[in-house]
Structures are given as structure tokens and as C-alpha cells.
């Protein structure tokens, strides 16, 4: 195997593999990137078996063949390469030579036959969806995914076809829940599936900067596949049932507060500096026309900030984990206003951006 490629192209393709390869994996081959140099093109593949990415590299094939080498080390070498072009060549016994100008690296790889097969998608129905909307849907839900590995069915974002041809994504960690509906056309999902957080994190990276383009999305058995330009990303779906999220979305929250998103976010960031590390608890005292946000910590002291809001409900004191509010306000952006619909201090509240009916965030209060 031997090929020549531009440093910038190689770096760009290797970049996608960096988030996929596992540092502490029990299978050494999974730390490697598979490099296939064929007449049809040069492809780079990385996978941790749950998520995989395969990118096409522009280059000049000198000789066909395959090798695998450590993805992180190769990326570092290419990044520091002195010249604009590089040459990769397979030597005896899985050694790989990387040349750029006067610098020559020899690193040892592993037998490419050990590298896991990339799932074959051919003939599956792929749907085209706007990359920008897809990215927005991921960004507005993924932060609510649970990181508790014992609740594996919450370790991903649930995706299903909603009514009116809309696509819905839902994520929850058991304390808060984010739901987004967007009209981006049907994906042909017979029932909802759970996409793993790691796969979606990579997908979001892939979609960065792709504001106008379309990506293809398809599903096959327990796999999801996304194709953007010359890059294919697959992810193994999470098995298990997503909880019935419709049950925890409150239907009757009569106390309505309307807040300026930026004021709310900044007040929370300031006040929460004095909340406890573990639960980040803050208290909101809602009264007609204003809310006082307070935090107190026996070890540090206390903080309070009052902001003006539209509120005509009865006076209410409710505690929240400030992080949950800051998370959602950060992804929703500082412009505009948010509406918070409350019931009392023990029931979940709903937060929405005032101009976006397709998004809602349910948050369970803290016990005061």
C-alpha cells in the first residue's frame, strides 16, 4: 500500500476519527485507523464497534493495499508534518512509513484483517434531511441525556416520527427532559429508536458548519447511518425501551412566568456560584412582576438577585438545580424570552422559548 495526499486533506479526514477511537479499549485494534488504498479511492475508517466513521480521502494511489495504525499518533504526526504533501507506505511486518519532506516516521500497526467490518448499507432507504435542522435538534436535546450507565435506555436520544410529518427527538436523565419537533420529513421509522450519545456527539461534529447542505439518514436493523458528502457515520442503536415520556409532560401548569432569556441566564450563572457543588440548588421566589433567585450554602454564604418578569400567578417558592436551567438557556441562546409554566413546588415545570412551539423542556424541582 502506498499513496500520496495533501496534508490538509489527510488532517481533515483523520479529524473525524479522533473522537471515535477509544483510548482505554480492551481491543488494541480499535485504537487504530484502517487505511484502505484502492483504485476506487482512499478510505479511512475508525470504530469502537458502537460508533464508526468512514471518510474518503483525496489522494494519489501509488499501490493498492490496507494497513492499520494508531489513529491518535498518526494525527499528531500529520499535524506536525513540515511539507504540504505526505506519503504513506506499507513496509514489512505491519510497519508503516510516513514521509513528508525530509522527515520520515516509521510506526508499527496491526494486521488489517483484525479490523472489524464496517456495516454494509446498500439498498436501504435513505432520507435527505437539512443538516442545520438536524444539528439544532441534536444540540437542543443531547445535553439532557443521562450519563448514568446503569440506565442505559436513557444514555441516548429517542427519535421517532411525530404527527404531521414531524420528526421528534427526546432526551431525559430522569430529572429533566428535552423534546423537540421539527418538520424535516419522514425517516421511515416504524417505531422510535434510541441513538447513543457518542454517535450523536460525532454526528453533531460532522454537521458543524454544514448550514445549507443535506445529509442522508437511514436505518437498518440495529444500526443508524448518516452520510454527509464523503463521510459515512454509523451508530449502533441502544436496545431497550425509552420510558413513556408523554406521562411526565405536565398538562395543567396554570402559573405562567415570562422572563427575558438573557437576564434569567445571567442571574442564574451569578447566583449559582454560591450553591452547593453537588446539587447546584437555587430557589426561585415568584411574586407578581418579579422573581428573586437565591442560593445559600452553609460553607460559603448566600447570594440573591431579583429580576423583573411577567408573572400574575400566586406567590410561589420553588427550588431548581441551576445547572439544568443554565443548560437549556445556553442552548436556546440569549435572544428573546422564555416562558415557564409552573404548578407548585413539587411538580414538574415546563420551559419554552416564547417563539418556538416545537421545543419544550420539562424540569423537576428540587426538594427544598
Amino acid at each position, binding site marked *: 500500500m502506498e499513496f500520496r495526499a495533501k496534508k490538509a486533506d489527510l488532517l481533515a479526514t483523520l479529524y473525524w476519527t479522533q473522537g471515535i477511537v477509544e483510548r482505554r479499549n480492551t481491543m488494541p485494534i480499535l485504537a487504530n485507523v484502517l487505511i484502505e488504498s484502492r483504485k476506487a479511492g482512499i478510505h479511512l475508517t475508525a470504530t469502537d464497534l458502537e460508533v464508526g466513521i468512514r471518510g474518503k480521502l483525496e489522494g494519489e494511489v501509488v499501490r493498492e493495499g490496507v494497513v492499520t495504525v494508531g489513529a491518535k499518533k498518526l494525527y499528531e504526526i500529520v499535524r506536525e508534518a513540515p511539507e504540504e504533501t505526505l506519503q504513506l507506505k506499507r513496509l514489512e511486518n505491519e510497519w508503516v512509513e510516513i514521509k513528508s519532506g525530509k522527515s520520515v516516521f516509521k510506526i508499527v500497526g496491526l494486521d488489517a484483517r483484525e479490523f472489524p467490518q464496517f456495516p454494509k448499507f446498500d439498498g436501504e432507504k435513505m432520507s435527505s434531511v437539512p443538516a442545520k435542522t438536524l444539528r439544532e435538534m441534536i444540540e437542543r436535546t443531547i445535553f439532557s441525556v443521562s450519563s*448514568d450507565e446503569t440506565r442505559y435506555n436513557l444514555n441516548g436520544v429517542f427519535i421517532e416520527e411525530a404527527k404531521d410529518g414531524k420528526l421528534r427527538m427526546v432526551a*431525559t436523565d*430522569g*430529572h*429533566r*427532559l428535552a423534546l423537540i419537533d421539527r418538520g424535516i420529513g419522514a425517516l421511515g421509522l416504524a417505531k422510535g429508536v434510541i441513538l447513543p450519545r457518542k454517535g450523536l456527539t460525532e454526528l453533531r461534529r460532522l454537521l458543524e458548519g454544514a448550514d445549507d447542505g443535506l445529509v442522508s439518514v437511514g436505518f437498518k436493523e440495529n444500526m443508524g447511518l448518516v452520510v454527509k458528502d464523503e463521510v459515512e457515520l454509523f451508530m449502533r442503536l441502544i436496545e431497550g425501551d425509552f*420510558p413513556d415520556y408523554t*406521562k*411526565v409532560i405536565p398538562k395543567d401548569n396554570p402559573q405562567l412566568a415570562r422572563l427575558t432569556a438573557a437576564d434569567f441566564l445571567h442571574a442564574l450563572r451569578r447566583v449559582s456560584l454560591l450553591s*452547593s457543588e453537588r*446539587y447546584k*440548588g437555587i430557589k426561585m421566589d415568584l411574586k407578581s412582576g418579579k422573581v428573586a433567585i437565591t442560593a445559600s450554602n452553609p460553607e460559603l454564604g448566600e447570594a440573591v438577585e431579583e429580576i423583573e418578569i411577567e408573572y400574575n400567578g400566586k406567590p410561589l417558592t420553588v*427550588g431548581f*438545580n441551576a445547572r439544568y436551567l443554565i443548560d437549556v438557556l445556553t442552548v436556546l441562546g440569549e435572544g428573546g424570552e422564555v416562558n415557564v409554566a409552573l404548578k407548585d413546588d*413539587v411538580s*414538574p415545570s415546563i420551559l419554552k422559548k416564547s417563539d418556538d412551539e416545537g421545543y419544550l423542556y*420539562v424540569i*423537576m*424541582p*428540587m*426538594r*427544598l
Partner: protein
Amino acid sequence: MRSYFHIDMDAFYASVEQAMNPDLKGKAVIVGGRSGRGVVTSASYEARKFGVRSAMPGFQAQRLCPHGIFLPNRHALYSEYSDKVFAILEQFSPAVRALSIDEALIDLTGTEKLFGAPIATAERIIARIRRDLDLPASGGLASSRVIAKIAATLAKPQGLIHVFPGSEENFLAPLSVSLVPGVGPKTRETLFARGVKTIGDLLAAPKLRDQYFDFDARGEARRHDHSIGSETTLDKPVKQIGEMEEVLWGLVEEVGRRLRTDGVFARCIAVKIRYSDFKTLTRSLTIETPTCVDREIFGVADALLKKHVAPGRPVRLLGVSASAFVRSGWQESLFDAGRERALENLYRGIDRLRGKYGAGAIGAAGARRRSR
């Protein structure tokens, strides 16, 4: 200034037996350990003279005190007497906290107008228990709960020690650290190794002082509790997990009730298992949502028991404890918060019923053969 009265019944089970049968008075009465394989659960002071102690194997007690009167455990009876003792305590203060079947902490703060000086009230309580139930008790009266407990321990048997406000440190300084609640044999060794032998030494170290004592700094008592626990020595060694679970339920009910009485929620649940050969293990688990609900505590304790108990190996003691307390300020769950609150209310209701009609008034169907 607060007034805490810690009362501890002397040789409770043995004393109940003596109260029921006056012929036993002045004799070495030993409850439990009759079979030789079982253990002593209580020994009268007459028997203690011969070296008999609670939790001692029966054969050893029989060797030390061959003339002793060995009696079987009658838990239902002791429970009944315990309820009677608490009924008396509750006449003197609304703030009676049961620490175990035979130990309680009574907050006498503010009872002066009704009953006179706290020390007089403490004397009256002990006298009432003696007169109405024919049972001996000892007590400690102090401005802090920890000091009250230490005083009660020192006062035994049939004594009452009043630690005057202002003299706390003088009273404590010469005492051994092993008298401090929360200092067991292991901790004592560690403290000794650091040169901390007396409570005076301990109080000189600000960190230890804060950890073990609840001195009144801001006019408000700080919590001194590290854990709330309940344990019981089984009448005879048990190998069946089902039998252990029954005992566990009883212990969990006790721990849950005390958590609710104190208004705290625990984030850490532990079980203690002691085998017949005295090998003891304690295993704990930290849970995400703090709880005071029996069912939740049992779920964790039972899982720990099943995971760690060696199958077929006879168990002689089981314990459950709750620690890492919080009073408020944790995140509730979106999916089952309603259920948690409903359970909490249910158990608080059960506590009220039991307070009114006794411990046996209501219980979980699986825990009918409770041993408290």
C-alpha cells in the same frame, strides 16, 4: 440553653423478666443463650458481676455463671414494655426521640414552667418508670445530646448525672474517648495511635471536636449524628435468606421511623452481617435520591444482603444503618417523584398510627414476625 435528657433502661430484657416474676429479683438473670449456641441478649447486673455481657455466646455465659437463670427471648413482651416506657416519657415532653427499644432522648427545653427544673423532671421520669413498671433506668442531663448520652452511660446502673451548663468540658476532659458515641474499637485504636486518649485530647483537635460533638455555638444544636442504625442478635443462627429478610424488615422499619422522626433523609444505606464465627462484614451503597421510606431502604439493604451474605453460612447478627443525611436540597426524579412522596406520606401515617396504638398496630404483610 437547651436541656437534653438521655435515658437508658438498665439491663432492659432481664429487668422486664424480673418485673414480670419478682422471684427473679436479685438473681443472675440471663436472657438468651440458653441453648449454648445462641447469644446473650441481656444480663441482669447480678449476672454481670460474673462477667456475663450482651452478645456473649451462651456457652461462655454458662461457664462464667453456671447458676444463672437462663431465659428465652420474649420480644413481644419487651416491645410492649418499651411502649409503656415511651408512653411515660411522652407525658413530659413532646420531643421524645426513640434511639432504640430501651433508649431515648428527651428534649426538656422549655418544660420548666410545667414541670419545674429539668433535673427534677428527669428524677421524676426515672421514679415514675420505677414505680409504674418496676423497671430501673439511668439518665444523663446536659446541654448537648452527645454529652447527655455520655452522662447516662456513666450513670449506669440506676444513676442520674447532671452536667451543669458551663462545666461540660471539665466533665468530659478526663473521660476515655471510647465513651464518645461513634467511637468504636477501630476508631479508638486510630485515635489512640494519634495520642488521643481522653475526650480532653479529642476536644483539643477542632476537627474531631466538630465531628463528634454538638456544642452549641450559635444557640442552635448542630446535628451530631453520623448514622441511624438498628441491629439485632438472632435468637439462633440463621441460614435461610428468607428468615434473614424478615429480621431485616424489622430493622428497616426501625431505621425508617427514626429517620422520619428526625426529619432527615439518608443517602447511604449499610447492612452488617455477623456470622456464627464472629466474622463481621459491613457493606454499604450510596443511592441517588435520599430516602426515609422503609420500602426504599429495604430494597437497598436486601440487595446488599443477597449480594454479600455467604450462602449457607449461619448468621447470628444483622444490622441496618442509614447515613449521609440531608434534610433538603436534592433533585427529585421526574419519573417517580410522585410515588416517592406518596410512600413518604404513607409511612408518616403509619408512624402516627403506631404512635397511637403501638408498634404492632400496622405493619407490612411480609414482616409479621417482627423482631424489634
